[in-house]
């Protein structure tokens, strides 16, 4: 070994040591606060699995303000432990108290449905100013009307779905002023089918073993009931194995479309024909397959303007050995899979992703990504897995990605404000990605910052549901995660440095949150776009308020809203670090 070599190695060791010490000195991006919030969960192992597919699919969470007291409450959708299907596992509602802790109010609220819970959709279907709840089940679904007095009533309003319901979302697709409902259904599961996995060991079945099902579309009649319009709308024409769904305008015509994540087959994009019918155009618009023209096992969906071009982009979570896929909207109402160019090269391949979301966790004015993982096929045990002998084979850590792109340099909007803290932390240094050949597309670039959120990413579990919202009302987005062992985990955002500003915008139409509305902030240097879209992720429902990280921007010049009925209004600008509400009809139409 030459002297130079020795010197280089010594230098490397010193740098690594210093770097490690530096990294340790930094605060984590998220801290788990489950216990501090009053959730005392039983630390016992979940019962070993019985290889029945529903038990591995998990269940969702809703972050909702059911009592209209201005803070977020939590609805946990549940199902019985494996092999104990007769043991009731009622859904649980937790009310946030003035001190930020939560109290179980399931009994008094009357929302504890005991079906085999899967997903949840939240929305004010009767425009009476409080949110109602739809719960999907492996079995008949359930609708709860909010009585406005902190109680719910289980009602039959024509929302009949006996198939295996998964994700669901409310949206006013027909622009008649009330919320309709889209429910994804998974497969026609046969409990007697036995499957084997790798090397013939018993395992959970691949969904292709079972027949696909038809999703359901229910139109709100306006009199408190719904009509099943699945057939008339054309949705029945193409069954699928649906797990995730979002509803917003993805074609740029101002009408709400439905995008469905299907497991192991082409995703569906139901394009609103504006006459109550839909045409499936996922292949034509580049949203059915990945860049290689291959179908993937799609689970959760995140929606957000990842590249600051005022168009919604999509991020889908997938199976082990598939990428989680980032579809960037192009200017011709199509989408392009930019997963690899955006930096997801190999990082997430070993994982099976479910719940996910775009969130600007560091309030630096660009959207980051968080996702939770957990296998559906038995494989090698990850170090740190400790959720029981059976489930350890399915447990995986979660992932957190920071948007580290030089988007503005590409799109010509000026340099994006950088995150002081996250920028320092980055173990994977911010890369100036080549973007060779993609100059015409503002392509975001993401860096894996999982190592800096150990509470969130180092716990090895089988996580499924995920919801986002500013639970502690401190100006940044927190996360709640549901795992297979009937567990909820809360992660408080610690990432945002004090110099980074934020703005929360609540858009209201007819006394309810204006689902599907597009909110645009105009500032001197930037234009930021967000969506009123609680129905994202996997089986879950997030807070409906639109969050904008502003970086060091200290003034919003103007706020524009495109409502779901197609109308557009401008609202006066404001200063940052506030929560504002805009009402349809009170702005200046344009």
């Amino acid at each position, binding site marked *: 070994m030459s002297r130079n070599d020795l010197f280089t190695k010594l230098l490397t060791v010193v740098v690594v040591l210093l770097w490690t010490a530096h990294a340790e000195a930094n605060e984590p991006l998220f801290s788990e606060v489950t216990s501090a919030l009053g959730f005392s969960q039983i630390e016992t192992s979940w019962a070993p699995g019985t290889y029945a597919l529903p038990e591995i699919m998990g269940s969702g969470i809703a972050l909702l303000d059911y009592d209209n007291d201005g803070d977020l409450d939590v609805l946990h959708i549940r199902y019985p432990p494996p092999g104990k299907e007769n043991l009731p596992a009622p859904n649980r509602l937790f009310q946030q108290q003035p001190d930020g802790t939560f109290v179980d109010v399931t009994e008094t609220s009357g929302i504890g449905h005991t079906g085999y819970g899967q997903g949840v959709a939240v929305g004010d279907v009767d425009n009476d100013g409080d949110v109602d709840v739809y719960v999907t089940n492996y079995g008949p679904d359930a609708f709860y009307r909010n009585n406005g007095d902190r109680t719910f009533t289980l009602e039959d309003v024509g929302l009949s779905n006996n198939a295996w319901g998964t994700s669901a979302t409310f949206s006013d697709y027909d622009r008649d002023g009330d919320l309709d409902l889209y429910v994804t259904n998974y497969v026609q599961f046969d409990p007697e089918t036995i499957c084997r996995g790798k*090397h013939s060991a018993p395992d959970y079945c691949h969904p292709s073993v079972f027949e696909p099902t038809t999703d359901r579309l229910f139109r709100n009649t306006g009199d408190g009931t719904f009509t099943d319009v699945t057939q008339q709308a054309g949705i029945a024409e193409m069954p699928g194995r649906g797990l995730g769904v979002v509803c917003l305008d993805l074609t740029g015509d101002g009408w709400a479309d439905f995008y469905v994540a299907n497991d192991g087959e082409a995703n569906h994009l139901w394009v609103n024909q504006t006459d109550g019918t839909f045409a499936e155009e996922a292949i034509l618009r580049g949203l059915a*397959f990945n860049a290689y023209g291959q179908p993937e096992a799609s689970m959760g969906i995140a929606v957000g303007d990842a590249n600051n071009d005022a168009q919604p982009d999509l991020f889908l979570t997938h199976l082990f050995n598939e990428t989680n896929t980032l579809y960037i909207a192009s200017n011709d109402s199509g989408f*392009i899979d930019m997963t690899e160019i955006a930096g997801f090269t190999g990082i997430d*391949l070993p994982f099976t992703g479910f719940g996910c979301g775009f969130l600007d966790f560091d309030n630096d004015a660009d959207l980051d990504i968080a996702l939770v993982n957990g296998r559906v096929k038995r494989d090698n045990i990850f170090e740190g897995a400790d959720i029981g002998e059976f489930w350890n*084979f399915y447990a995986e850590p979660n992932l957190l990605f920071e948007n580290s792109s030089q988007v503005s340099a590409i799109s010509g909007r000026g340099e994006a404000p950088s995150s002081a803290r996250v920028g320092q932390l980055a173990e994977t240094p911010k890369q100036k990605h080549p973007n060779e050949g993609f100059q015409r597309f503002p392509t975001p670039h993401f860096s894996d910052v999982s190592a800096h959120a150990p509470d969130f990413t180092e716990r090895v579990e089988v996580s499924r549901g995920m919801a986002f919202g500013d639970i502690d009302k401190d100006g940044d987005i927190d996360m709640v995660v549901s795992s297979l062992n009937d567990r909820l985990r809360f992660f408080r955002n610690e990432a945002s440095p004090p110099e980074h500003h934020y703005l929360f915008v609540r858009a209201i139409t007819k006394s309810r949150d204006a689902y599907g509305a597009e909110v645009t902030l105009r500032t001197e240097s930037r234009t930021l776009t967000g969506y009123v879209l609680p129905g994202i992720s996997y089986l879950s429902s997030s807070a409906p308020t639109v969050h904008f990280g502003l970086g060091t921007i200290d003034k919003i010049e103007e706020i524009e809203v495109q409502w779901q009925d197609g109308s557009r209004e401008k609202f006066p600008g404001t200063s940052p670090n506030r929560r504002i509400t805009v009402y349809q009809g009170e702005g200046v139409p344009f």
Partner: protein
Amino acid sequence: MKVFKFTLRKVEVVVHSSFLFYLRTPFHFVLRFYAKQKQVKTETENIVPLSNNIIVDIFGLAIQRSLLLLLLLINGFISAKSQGEVNIPQPADLDLVEERRLLKAVETAQKAVRNVPDDAEVWGQLGHVYLIHRWEVPAIACYRQANTIAPDEFRWLYFLGRLTTRREPEAAVKYLNRALALNDAYAPAHLYLASALRILGKLDDAQQHLKTAKELQPDNPFSELWLGEIAFAQRQVELARTHLENALRLNPNQSEAHALMAQVATRLGDKETAKKHAYAARQPSRHSELSDPLWWHVLRAGVTAPLYAERGRRYMAEGNYIDAVAEFEVLISRTQKDIDVWLDYGVSLFHIERYAQARAALEHAQTLLRSDEDTRKNKKPHEIAYLQAQAYNYIAQTYYETGQTDAAILTGQKAIQLFHNSVGNTQPSLTKNSRLFLDIGNRVLGQKTHDATYTTFLANVHANLAMAYEDIGQLEQALAQYKKSLELVPTKSASHRDLAGVYWKMRRYAEAEPHYKRVAADAPTDLQAVYRLGLISLTKEDYETAIARFEKVIELDAAHVRAYEALGIAYQEIGDISAAMGAFEEVLRLEPNNKNTSEILKELREKQ
């Protein structure tokens, strides 16, 4: 404990070998020499030498054995230590494996590595065993070791590159560049390198390697597909279309290319074409596997049932039915319930003319399809009917080949009936939109109501049935079946030929003619078709055409006596006696005893 065990084993080996002798000898010699010196000395001192000798012997033996034991312990320790250095990567979930064949394969490959840890081949083989059984991480470690031992071996670099393309694209680029420096003519290496470069955003370099792969393997549709994908991502829509059209020419069933073509056509505003390709993109991709000869090395290491079946099917695709049978035979047992295995086994047996066994295998498949609960549960009714039709078709052919024509006809009819059942069963499940897609697909792609595979299959069944009818002389039935076959696949040259043959037998030459023309157009060297067309022309007194056709036959087969004979007649008819005589002389040259021609020739000479 490891050292101890190893030492014990060593001791056993040493004790039972001549090695002990060689070890003993030098010690014994030294001790004896020492004793002798002592003896000389003691003799002078008058001390009894015998007891001294015994003591020396005992003492010597003790020292000798102690030293031997010490040596063995050191040896054992060193060996165990060196064995411990053979750090064999282990699949973490090996404990979960229940298949004995797989455990044995892993054990054997690991043992080979332990025995010859410096051999790259054994490391590579262990890598193959891991890789084909989906243990990619330990496989990479094995290939890395093989590459360390044999850094200039293309295979290890190639497999390392291939395996790391998606997970570690930067590493993959390094491995594959090194591999290509050793052999730049291996197209798959260029393709994987292009893939890694594409992931890294180095699109120009990726395109270059795709072009090289295209030059090296022009029939591989992946180069064109990926060039199309890159062009589309760069918004070069027209260029993307060109590449994708090329890809689809090479493999019209490549769903991936259809998916992108749908987007390309949408961007170009061609909605009808976009819908056509969107329809095709929903069908499973067929024949789109990368042609990679080195993959066979890996595939051969597979010992699980699906891998035997995969090898069998690959051999079938290559037309190598002997090896296919050998692969399937490993899987065949009373407990084997995979219907596809039984069918493929039966078909392979049929192709190597083991008809009785083929029939037995196919009938067993039928039994499973009829009565096995698991098989029936996992298949839809129309799938079962289709598989039954396939089995009956081959059973019919085994009957036909063994001269049991009546049975062949009966079984062939069953196949057709079941086929129609299978198609009929699929129709009610079609929703309005599915039908719309089918209609669009049918209209634009020119397909019949059902999938092209099914159509081809049914055409074959009808043709086989026709052949059987023809054999037993039921020519009208044969005609009907051949016609059905051609209705389904109008381009099937063999059916045109067979149909024309039946017309010929029935002396319905005018009806035979268009079919022979089709055959001759498809295969201009088909002697029978050209010759018979010549004869038809002769009967129609179209002598010029007849002459041209017979001359074509003679050009193809200079010993075709009948063509010379017919040519002579044609020339005779147009009054070219000299040319006619020339043709008849050729007949006599080839058939000196042909009395008829001799007489004609005699008459012609007399006329002259």
